[in-house]
């Protein structure tokens, strides 16, 4: 064997050794932070989910998004819905070998409340730092200021950090004896107990993790042992890497056309499921003429849903109101139940649309509305063009305005600058219908891009508040359903689609499962590689 052949053989052997159990995931967006008190976007969430353990975990292995036991083995709540007691699992080890205890849970939550970043909005005002207590080494009690129905669901975002390790690495900062609360330390290091340990973090290109051998969940053969989470911003490059086998999976943010092309590529699987995402065109209910429900209904009746779903989204489930369908299904609600509450899909009827406009006293050509959508938002632009031509048929003019996302966020903050209409994608953040009802239609939420419709109805507000306070799960669900039914009848948005969630990976990757929650589908611990 010549030198050259030997080198080639060596290369192959090394390549295989290198590839064994390693997994390369490509993501288009930078991992802006790995601090579990600061993450808000998907890529940061991926980092956190894989290196930390949350108090409760969605029951993904059963195909459900409801929370199930994880760090907390079990929990109970008091009859008034304000006190929750969690039993912590014994024997969970942090990556430095120390045991995770109730103290760490308390510290993690208090840290989030103090930093006021990331997902802290879930608990600010609801929980006072002093009302989270460790009763003993394995018991934590949360005392809420008021009952909050989705509380346990929100704890899927409470990731437990290693108190001792953070305290040993404090820097001076604004939190008194707690210094900077470990902000500087956790920006570049991790202090978790999750299945993977941090190896390298170069935030604009690479996150490398390797398995934590003493993970409490244990390890089986063929699981992913080493993860290269790479940031690749160019779609064509992503496709090249996946097709060449240099990557095992690419993220869910590519265009529908890309996934269609990948479906036809040998060796690649595209997983498609209805997402827990809502695409809708919000209408500003505070400004004439859209403050008249008849005008809003006319617009919803004019839109051509079939064309949008088939030709723009290339297959999607038509939205029925604000809550993504799979979020209802996770709570055992069937489509017939939704019908009963009036949670139905809108449909096109131009004749009826014209009548509604006439009833509102609007003549053809009299009204011009503005539709804003984010820069580079191809789907949003196409929907805008379709809506423009539909509205033209009933004599309403629509101006399309493409704006930087930062500008749309700013406009939504005040009533004067909020646009007439805006095309928005809205993703479920915690596994509960509350996210897409209270979070979008309770006046306390006004000011963000989720609430451009600035909807307010006394009855709906009261129902939503009662729903949050309700402690009986059946009654609670009923209240959310009733509120949603009323919202659908008020047309604050043109509800268009629950788009398909698409993700592409090599066909030797097994165990991928999407249940509808942002980020939780990319838990590398769940994957095996059948090479």
């Amino acid at each position, binding site marked *: 064997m010549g030198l050259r052949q030997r080198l080639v053989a060596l290369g192959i052997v090394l390549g295989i050794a290198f590839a064994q159990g390693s997994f390369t995931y490509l993501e288009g967006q930078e991992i802006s932070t790995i601090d579990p008190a600061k993450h808000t976007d998907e890529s940061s969430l991926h980092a956190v989910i894989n290196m930390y353990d949350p108090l409760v975990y969605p029951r993904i292995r059963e195909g459900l998004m409801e929370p199930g036991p994880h760090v907390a083995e079990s929990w109970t709540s008091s009859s008034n819905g304000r006190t929750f007691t969690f039993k912590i699992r014994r024997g969970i080890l942090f990556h430095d070998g120390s045991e995770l205890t109730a103290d760490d849970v308390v510290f993690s939550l208090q840290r989030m409340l103090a930093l006021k970043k990331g997902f802290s909005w879930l608990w600010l005002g609801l929980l006072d730092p002093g009302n989270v207590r460790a009763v003993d080494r394995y018991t934590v009690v949360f005392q809420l200021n008021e009952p909050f129905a989705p509380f346990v669901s929100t704890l899927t975002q409470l990731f437990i950090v290693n108190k001792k390790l953070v305290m040993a690495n404090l820097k001076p900062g604004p939190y008194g004896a707690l210094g900077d609360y470990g902000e500087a330390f956790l920006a570049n290091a991790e202090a978790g107990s999750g299945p993977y340990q941090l190896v390298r973090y170069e935030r604009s290109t690479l996150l490398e993790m390797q398995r934590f051998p003493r993970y409490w969940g244990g390890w089986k053969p063929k699981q992913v042992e080493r993860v290269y989470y790479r940031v690749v*911003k160019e779609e064509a*490059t992503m496709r090249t890497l996946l097709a060449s086998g240099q990557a095992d999976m690419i993220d869910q943010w590519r265009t529908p056309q890309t996934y269609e092309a990948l479906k036809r590529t040998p060796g690649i699987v595209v997983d498609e499921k209805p997402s827990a995402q809502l695409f809708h065109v919000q209408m500003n209910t505070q400004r004439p003429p859209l403050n008249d429900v008849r005008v809003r209904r006319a617009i919803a009746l004019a839109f051509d849903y079939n064309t949008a779903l088939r030709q723009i989204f290339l297959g999607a489930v038509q939205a029925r109101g604000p809550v993504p369908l799979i979020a209802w299904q996770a709570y055992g609600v069937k489509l017939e139940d939704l019908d009963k509450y009036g949670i139905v899909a809108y449909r096109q009827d131009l004749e009826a649309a014209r009548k509604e406009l006439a009833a509102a006293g609007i003549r053809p050509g009299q009204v011009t509305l503005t539709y804003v959508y984010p820069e580079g938002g191809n789907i949003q632009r196409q929907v805008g063009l379709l809506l423009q031509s539909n509205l033209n048929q009933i004599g309403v003019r629509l101006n399309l305005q493409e704006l930087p996302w930062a500008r749309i966020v700013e406009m939504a903050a005040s009533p004067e600058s909020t646009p007439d209409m805006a095309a928005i994608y809205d993703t479920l953040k915690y596994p509960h219908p509350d996210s897409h009802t209270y979070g979008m239609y309770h006046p306390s939420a006004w000011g963000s891009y989720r609430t451009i419709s600035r909807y307010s109805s006394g009855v709906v507000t009261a129902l939503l508040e009662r729903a949050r306070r309700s402690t009986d799960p059946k009654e609670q669900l009923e209240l959310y359903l009733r509120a949603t039914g009323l919202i659908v009848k008020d047309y604050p948005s043109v509800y268009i689609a629950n788009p398909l969630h698409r993700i592409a990976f090599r066909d030797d990757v097994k165990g991928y499962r999407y249940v509808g929650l942002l980020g939780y589908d990319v838990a590398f611990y769940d994957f095996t590689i059948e090479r």
Partner: protein
Amino acid sequence: MDLAGFLIRRFIEAIPTFFGLLVLIFLIARVMPGDPIRLALGPEATQAQIEAFRRELGLDLPLWLQFATYLQNLSRGDFGISLRTHRSVSEDLRELVPATLELVGSALLLSVVFGLPAGILSAIYRNSWIDASARLAAVSGVALPRFWVGILLQIFLAYRLGLFPIIGRSDLGVSVSQLTGFRTVDALLAGNMPAFLDAVWHLALPAFTLALPTIAQVARLVRASMIEVLGQPYILVHRAYGLPPRRIVYRFALRNSLTSTLTLIGLSFGALIENAFLVEVVFSWPGISAYGAQAVLAKDFNAVVAVTLVIGLAFLVANLIVDLLYGLLDPRVRYD
């Protein structure tokens, strides 16, 4: 005036330029449309969260006070906190600037290595097939969009033929302790030859993609000025004396035609940093240009100011170096 005096004067002259740039970009970054706080905290952020963050960043203070605080921090090398990465901008830049400089430096090197000979050959063998093909290549080099060329190179040379890596600065298995942040330099300092070759191998495609238009410009400019110089009477005199053509070209013609090329290369340095954006995106190169673009989109004002200052500084330094090189090339230039 001597060289030292010249340097001091240029340095003093640069201060108002730099300060003007700072004031301008500081204001622009703060009045750009968009609400950075809400953008950073996400749509569900409560009013309490928004106010706390605004205070933390000092955005509740009047603008002049914000500027004064900024200057004070800047004097300590502190550019403030990035809204996107939640850590100090200086820390971000320390990782990103060497990556971009390494890329841009290599691109400049390639521009000279490829552009100069192409231009010289074109001029000497004027109107031959060599000239025609060099000119065709030069026109294409300027006209073809960088990201497109980058993707094509990636697909054919990297993916189909497997000659180069598709993305990144080094192989995932390679690690060298980072002293300077320049992968090639760090590898050499560590005496790690395989890591050095790996870094060069990763640099090749992105640097070439970035360099392409500059190579083309250099080639065209060298050709034009060479033709002009070769037609000068003193060249004719040298010819009449019977000097070998090689000596005439390299000793006399080339040297005299290089001053304009040098200006071009100096100016290209700054432009290349800006243009590195598309190349950085296509090749997943962790550089300052892509970082700056993201910062603008997210209205990450501290990062925007810092990136602009760094690029501005690069421009100033590059121009200074060009001025110094003039003196080396052309003895008639005096520093006064």
